[in-house]
């Protein structure tokens, strides 16, 4: 089974009215909240921070939906003979065209708004953090869900979700009040990145490489 074949099969499942409706609904809801909050706060610098939080909500919604979809897809892909690595590659292949443009769009939009209100270019940094956190958090969550070990599915998935959420909230909060915002980020972001990367590596790498991280190399021994 090739990665493009798997990506095509997944795409065929995603490009359907029901699925697109869920994605579109989540996106519109997040954007709506953002617009409303921005209008409510008026042309105030803090609105940028609110915008960041709203952007994080949008990303969270998209991430949650895609994770839910991916978890079902992962289970069925394994049953259909795909390896975790192929599933991950297909997921990346599909996620890149979706996640990167959305993050870029949010980044540009908020930067433009911020600039028009006095040029707060530094707020690009929290946004970039939101993007990185969403990416690693989402990746880690998908990997945790793909794990055959119930312990990982039960603990790592909600744990990573909360860490990701804390990271994006922290990133958003830096625009309101830098001290607590960066404090939250300092704790949540490294944990999110570490856990997300570890789960991704453990899931995606072949056993002989993953064995370096998780114990004995079964393939090496078997051969």
């Amino acid at each position, binding site marked *: *089974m090739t990665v493009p*074949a*798997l990506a*095509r*099969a997944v795409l*065929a*499942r995603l490009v359907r009215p029901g699925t697109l409706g869920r994605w579109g609904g989540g996106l519109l809801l997040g954007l709506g909240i953002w617009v409303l909050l921005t209008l409510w706060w008026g042309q105030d610098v803090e609105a940028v921070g609110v915008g960041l939080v709203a952007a994080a909500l949008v990303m969270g919604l998209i991430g949650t939906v895609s994770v839910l979809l991916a978890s*079902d897809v992962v*289970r*069925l*892909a*394994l*049953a*259909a*003979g*795909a*390896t*975790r*690595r*192929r599933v991950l590659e297909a997921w990346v292949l599909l996620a890149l065209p979706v996640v990167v443009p959305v993050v870029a769009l949010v980044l540009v939009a908020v930067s433009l708004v911020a600039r028009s209100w006095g040029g707060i270019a530094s707020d690009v940094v929290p946004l970039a953090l939101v993007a990185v956190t969403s990416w690693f958090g989402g990746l880690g969550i998908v990997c945790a869900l793909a794990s*055959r070990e119930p312990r990982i599915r039960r603990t790592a998935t909600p744990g990573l979700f909360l860490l990701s959420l804390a990271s994006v909230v922290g990133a958003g909060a830096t625009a309101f009040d830098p001290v607590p915002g960066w404090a939250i980020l300092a704790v949540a972001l490294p944990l999110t990145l570490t856990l997300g990367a570890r789960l991704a590596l453990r899931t995606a790498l*072949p*056993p002989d490489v993953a064995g370096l991280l998780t114990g*004995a190399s*079964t*393939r090496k*021994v*078997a*051969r």
Partner: protein
Amino acid sequence: MTTAPIAVATHGLTKRYGATTALEGLDLEIRAGAITGLLGRNGAGKSTLLQLVAGFERPTSGHVLVDGEDPFDNALTMAGTQLVREGGDTFTSEPVKDTLEWYRDLRENWDADLAASLVDAFQVDTSQKVENLSRGQTSMVGAIVGLAARAPLTIFDETYIGMDAPNRETFYEALLTDYAAHPRTIVISSHLISEVERMFEEVVILDAGRVLVAGDADDVRSRGLTLTGRAADVERLLGARDVLTRRELGPTSQVTVLTSPGDDLPARARDAGLEVDGVGLQDLFVHLTRRSGSTAKDES
């Protein structure tokens, strides 16, 4: 992807979940191109073994080799293995046809005509959501996937659960017909031994994570023997053989014994005027696993 039947071997295979040991030092060979029955009581380790073979899990220690390779996350062996788990792996909140299309898109050897004919034979409504199907109908979807995927290593783990008798027959017939036309390695994990044993060419009996008996199905069947006659004659012939059950009826004794391949006990028993009967696979399974269970209890 290879289409040749795939052999499976395990060496000292152990799988633990926390304090629970599901498999303990399992040494086993599953012959390529044969239908193997994997029998065992609840919790014997059948599903764990099959998940390890399918590459879904990693052993705690020891090795499992599929076509000579470690199957865990192995693109080659996983592409050649179709494990149909109890309840099937389906998109539960979507119509049956979505699941069939999914496997059609991902399984290289998928036979759409066979899938369609099985859908007709089982009378499955493919427009129905899987979650709205009965348990038996969900099992039928799993059976269709397992057969139509035509993987060189096809594994059915209690696939027939919930199916009614006519549908089980349909499944067995379809399996044998397709196996004859497209030989491959098939493993059937089952509780309904008397119903499926006619299909087995090889048999493996697991108990408490260990192999009790494994080998050619006819050889395994012939290893169980019931001797009935005068107690003294029966006892004289038994020697050090493994007695599974013993029943005393006054001066008459009835003993079920496990023999080794090539044992001359049947001939000697007949010469001694004893009644000699074979033991069906199901009876042998019951005797072996019941005895094993009571031994374990005694040891604890």
